[in-house]
């Protein structure tokens, strides 16, 4: 086994004895007035004995419990959601939380009753993070759903976040089992439903959605991935070989076409699916990730499909896309088989300057890591890199490339939950027997991954039906936290306890013209030793969830940064040489050196 040689940390910032999160939050902050950063050398989390993540949801006011609305008929939607979102809706500098809710499916009584004291529908929680002068953090969330005017009818699946009107306020797109919803942020703490006016109320079963500027006109366009042409009326029961009822596989329904909306800039969107070339190929979409996969400066789109070929829509730069997934090696698994692809994220795990893909999949298939050769050609290297075998027992959904320990190498988190019932645990006490443990894969220098779930903390010992996962620095302390959405279960907020033991660089990439985060921008962080770390601003990926659009770069044990180069989505390149480590810095387009 390869181990990175990392010296031991002389002072433990957050003691292992700090087992209660509230106590941790009160007592374990940094001693200076700046966001916490490393003090001297750090211990690798695996050896330090500190839990990597601690669930703090209940303690910080996130008391949401998902209601999947199951009545015993085993409708497919009841086990496909929910997603979750992290975004700063009130522009106060911290990430707020959006949680997607279900509702009763069909007639009858729910098998798992909704929580009695919880209002129905999606919930928005405002982050009331306070940072004391000594750096101590007090994290608290307040349910502001009603005062924000969030009213999203229907059965929720996912959420995407992006500023559609470039007014500097994050808007929301909600995918549903039914008509999707667009909510415009008025900038005064409230949202208005602009679904009808924007023309984005697609009535199909949407799951993933991505905001990205595919035509470089400065406005965020919208991709919506649709799953199946399934309705409750057309539901037919499915059985296993023994004749026991179970959830239907995706093959029992037709996939429904995806949609690409072009932002006209006047509050309306145009369905350009056909003219952009996306209408002919589609599958049951569950994941979507946008990135420039071939390095031509135009943002491409990867769509992960359930048990069908994926699409790799390469942006032609003229408003059209061509699907290159099969020829590029990203349509199928290494054996040429279509896999049940769920969540996806793009990231440069081997620090070679291109975007690689990680996809969560069905148990028995194993998750897939497609390694990019830089020209947009991929090779499934899951087995050789140590991903495939440990992921075989699990069905993964939400996922992301995050640098858990800020050592400069992107690790993987996959949240899991089965899609076929476990009859050995199924029964009146457990009618939704799909629970599984979640997983962490630690990146060993870009050459190999190791499943380190057992060391990731007590929260990773839980077995739940996890689906969505949103990733971001919720407490602004310089490491990536995880908002995890469980089907028919409580939300979890996994606060990272180890990342900020090392140095880090926090960047917000801002476009002054559009007044919004430049999602899709790439960042090259050049180190004094000449090595470069490549990251990108993104809010999409994972499963039906919205991520922190800021860029958090782990620097390891050295804070040295020679320069930061930003490749803006519009094609410009700028450079900064004085970006400080261990704090967040806003890089505004037009203020760097060409």
């Amino acid at each position, binding site marked *: 086994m390869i181990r990175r040689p990392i010296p031991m940390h002389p002072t433990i910032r957050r003691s292992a004895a700090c087992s209660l999160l509230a106590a941790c939050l009160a007592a374990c902050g940094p001693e200076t007035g700046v966001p916490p950063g490393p003090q001297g050398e750090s211990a690798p989390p695996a050896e330090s004995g500190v839990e990597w993540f601690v669930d703090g949801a209940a303690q910080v006011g996130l008391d949401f419990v998902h209601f999947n609305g199951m009545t015993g008929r085993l409708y497919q939607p009841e086990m496909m959601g929910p997603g979750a979102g992290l975004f700063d809706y009130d522009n106060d500098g911290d990430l707020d939380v959006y949680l997607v809710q279900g509702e009763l499916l069909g007639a009858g009584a729910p098998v798992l009753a909704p929580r009695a004291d919880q209002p129905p529908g999606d919930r928005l929680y405002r982050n009331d993070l306070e940072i004391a002068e000594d750096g101590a953090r007090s994290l608290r969330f307040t349910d502001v759903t009603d005062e924000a005017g969030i009213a999203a009818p229907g059965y929720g699946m996912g959420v995407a976040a992006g500023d559609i009107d470039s007014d500097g306020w994050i808007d929301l797109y909600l995918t549903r089992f039914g008509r999707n919803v667009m909510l415009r942020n008025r900038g005064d703490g409230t949202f208005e439903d602009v679904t009808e006016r924007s023309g984005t109320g697609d009535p199909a079963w949407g799951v993933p959605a991505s905001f990205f500027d595919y035509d470089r006109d400065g406005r965020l366009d919208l991709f919506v991935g649709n799953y199946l042409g399934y309705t409750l009326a057309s539901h037919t029961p499915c059985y296993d070989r023994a004749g026991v009822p179970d959830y239907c596989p995706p093959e029992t329904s037709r996939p429904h076409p995806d949609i690409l909306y072009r932002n006209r800039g006047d509050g309306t969107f145009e369905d350009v699916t*056909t003219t952009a070339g996306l209408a002919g190929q589609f599958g049951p979409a569950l994941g979507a990730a946008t990135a420039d996969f071939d390095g031509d400066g135009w943002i491409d789109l990867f769509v992960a499909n359930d048990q069908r070929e994926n699409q790799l829509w390469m942006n032609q730069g003229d408003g059209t896309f061509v699907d290159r997934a099969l020829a590029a090696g990203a349509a199928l698994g290494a054996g040429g088989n279509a896999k049940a692809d769920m969540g996806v994220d793009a990231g440069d795990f081997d620090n070679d300057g291109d975007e690689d893909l990680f996809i969560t999949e069905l148990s028995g298939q194993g998750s897939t890591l497609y390694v990019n050769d830089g020209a947009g050609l991929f090779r499934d290297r899951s087995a050789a890199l140590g991903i495939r*075998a440990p992921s075989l027992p699990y069905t993964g959904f939400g996922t992301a490339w995050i640098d858990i320990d800020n050592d400069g190498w992107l690790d993987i988190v996959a949240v899991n939950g089965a899609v076929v019932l476990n009859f050995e645990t199924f029964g009146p006490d457990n009618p939704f027997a799909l629970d599984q443990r979640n997983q962490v894969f630690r990146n060993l220098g870009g050459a190999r991954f190791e499943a380190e779930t057992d060391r990731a903390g007590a929260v990773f010992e839980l077995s739940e039906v996890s689906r969505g996962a949103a990733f971001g620095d919720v407490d602004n302390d310089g490491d990536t936290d995880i908002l995890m959405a469980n089907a028919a279960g409580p939300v979890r907020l996994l606060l990272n306890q180890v990342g900020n033991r090392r140095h880090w660089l926090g960047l917000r990439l801002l476009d002054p013209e559009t007044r919004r985060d430049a999602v899709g921008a790439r960042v090259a962080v050049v180190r004094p030793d000449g090595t470069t770390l490549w990251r990108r601003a993104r809010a999409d990926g994972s499963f039906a969830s919205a991520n922190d659009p800021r860029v958090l770069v782990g620097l390891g044990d050295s804070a040295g940064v020679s320069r930061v180069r930003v490749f803006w989505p519009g094609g410009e390149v700028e450079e900064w040489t004085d970006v400080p480590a261990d704090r967040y810095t806003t890089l505004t387009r037009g203020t760097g050196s060409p």
Partner: protein
Amino acid sequence: MDGRARGPLHDADTGDRIAMTRPPLRRSPAAASPLVAAAIAGLLASGCAPADEAAPPAPAAGAVDAADLPPLVMPDLSGLPEPVRTQVRERRDALQRAEDTGASAGARANAYGELGLILMATRFYDAAETAFDHAQALAPRQMRWPYYLGQLYRTTGDQPRAVERFERAVELDPTYVAALVRLGELYLDEGRAEEAEPLFEQALAVDPASAPALSGIGRAALSRGETARAIEHLERALAIGPPAWDIHYNLATAYREAGNPERADEHLSQRGGDPPEPPDPLMRAYERLLRSPRAYETRGVAAMQDGRTAEAVEIFREGLAQTPDDASLRQQLGAALFARGDADGAAEQLEGALRLDPTLARAHAGLGTLASMGGRWVEAIERFAAAVEHDPDYLEARLGLVDAYRAAGRPEDALTELDRAIELAPGYADVWLARGLQLVQLGRYREARDSLDEARTVHPRHSGLADLLVRVLAASPDPAARDGRRALEIVELLLEAPPNPTLDETVAMALAEAGRYAEAAERQRRAIAAAEQAGYSEMARALAGTLARYEQGRPSRAPLGGPQP
């Protein structure tokens, strides 16, 4: 209830579920078991002696004595349908008898193993695991118990244990190709290509015509970056086995890495074909184990999909002998009989299925198809309408209804159904094609042209849409719908397809509309010859009628062929 207090076998059949205690995890060694390597080396040296003649293998490292194993606790079977529950109970009782009568270790091993199989088939994996553990502890030289246990762990994704059990199976019988191939694949899953390759080589030594073994060597070479060797073995696998897609895909990967994208594209265009599988009588027996209607249905449908229709009929009949009141199984039998050409038998079974379940849309649709074939269009409409009433999203039934309406002289109703079908499946080219055809038949040529144009923006490479659009542009009686220049442009795209009479007829229409009558006539003659050669005499006669027009210097005005207006 504490089942452990009552001996080796405990029953929670009707009571509370009892948690199983998992035996200690025996991790896979970091490298291939030396015993596996020794067994393979010895076998290669001795010329592949069958397992029975081989020297008895040493006990597996970490082998567990039966007395040390936890007792088998039967799971709650109440959720299982009859007769599967009966099957499990029969095997449980057989084991109990073997224990009670002090049967030999071998007999008890068999009883445990047989029970393990049925528990695995019913997805009681923990209980099945314990049963197999007992079986292999009682009969440590029987290869099949570690093999089944390996399959169980493979199903649950427990890779380390699957590797360990398959290694043991290979030690016990290095001639069982399926075990060698599975273990090789597991090594590949772990990135251990160097260790996988000797297993595939051994499989090839046992069966020199094993496409899975050759494919495995190719995949191992590919993962090691040895593209030339990968190509060599994968090409050999393709040559001796059926045209399997996974081999084409791996060849495409190899050629792409070898810098030959053209060959890669060639292989990527060879879609279809299941992966080659080694003969595996053990798993075949397992797959035939369950006597539930759904198990018979699964097997029968698989046989149908493989074109083994006679076997499918047998399987469905066998299932119905067990559960004659299963409507779905009876409908499947009807479908299989239909595929065998037994229309009367099919109708009888489909009617029988509907007596059992009047809402079974597939049975209604099947009868609709039979009525259509018999030209009984009113009945066909009734049947298909019933099918879509019970399953509004049943696209194939809706298209059957379209055909029936059209044949019954109700084109407007057909068009309405097509619009509904497009709402259901907007991304499916064939539905758009059917809509275009219907509009042509209604004489709404401009609408047909516009609809086909719209469809072609989504499906630009769909030859059927292009073909029909050319015909509309070249031969519509409505001059406002015609555009000879565009027809010729589009027809160029069709010429890449292999020649056939329909395509020749289409090309001839476009040429004639452009005033190139001699060429049109030549094409038409070719179409006539091809139709006659294929035995389509009626089509040949219709084509000949249009040929006369071309010879007279007149274009066609019948886009769908047939008599000119």
